């Protein structure tokens, strides 16, 4: 009986783990989307934007990047170039792209 209980517990823990991973961002999908949509201006890893007015994105916090993309998409943040790109992204794309940029090597840091 204790054996069955322990097994059930293990199974439940495994299920939670798997579900958690499924909900996590997909870095490969993010990379693909970045190559299609973002890389031409921000660079493939987000570290080398082609214009000084464009931000470096590599190593930036993913929740901030998601917030920026959601705001461009909704129009809360007004930028004609980014509005066009953000409107082509689903919520899942936004999550994946943000995760991808945030995990790239970066020169960005918190400055005191």
């Amino acid at each position, binding site marked *: 009986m204790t054996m069955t209980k322990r097994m059930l517990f293990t199974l439940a823990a495994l299920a939670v783990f798997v579900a958690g991973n499924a909900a996590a961002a997909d870095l490969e999908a993010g990379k693909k989307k970045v190559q299609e949509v973002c890389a031409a201006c921000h660079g493939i890893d987000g570290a080398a934007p*082609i*214009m000084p007015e464009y931000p470096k994105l590599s190593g930036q916090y993913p929740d901030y990047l998601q917030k920026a993309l959601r705001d461009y998409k909704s129009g809360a*943040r007004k930028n004609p170039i980014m509005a066009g790109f953000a409107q082509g992204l689903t919520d899942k794309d936004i999550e994946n792209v943000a995760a991808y940029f945030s995990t790239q090597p*970066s020169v*960005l840091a918190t400055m005191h």
Partner: protein
Amino acid sequence: MKRFVVFAAMLGAALSPQFAVAQTPAPVPAAQPAATMAPAAAPAGNPLKGSQKVAMCQGCHGIVGWRTAFPEVYRVPKLGGQNAAYVVAALKEYKTGNRGHPTMRAIAASLSDADMADIAAYYSQAPLTTASK
């Protein structure tokens, strides 16, 4: 004279962001007298002066992983090492209302163009401290 007009038009096109999206920006040839005719460039910032103007930034941007509590919860962006021109552009967007965070709008409204340039110059330096991942 005609040649000058053509050159000015090309310079204008080269400076417009839309053009640059499609094309890698060519290095601007040095010592072109007409370059002074281009739209006034942003004032060059002074990082030292900037370091004296960031007191109100550091309460959030100077703390690794700091989260805004209002109107949404997310970590405030890392600014160390960011492009100076982007930081200026972002501050101007807050000042004009094209970007809507209440605290950032209030702070940006209090900054002059020179303040923004100095602050941007300060943050764009190679980060001196905590590289957080």
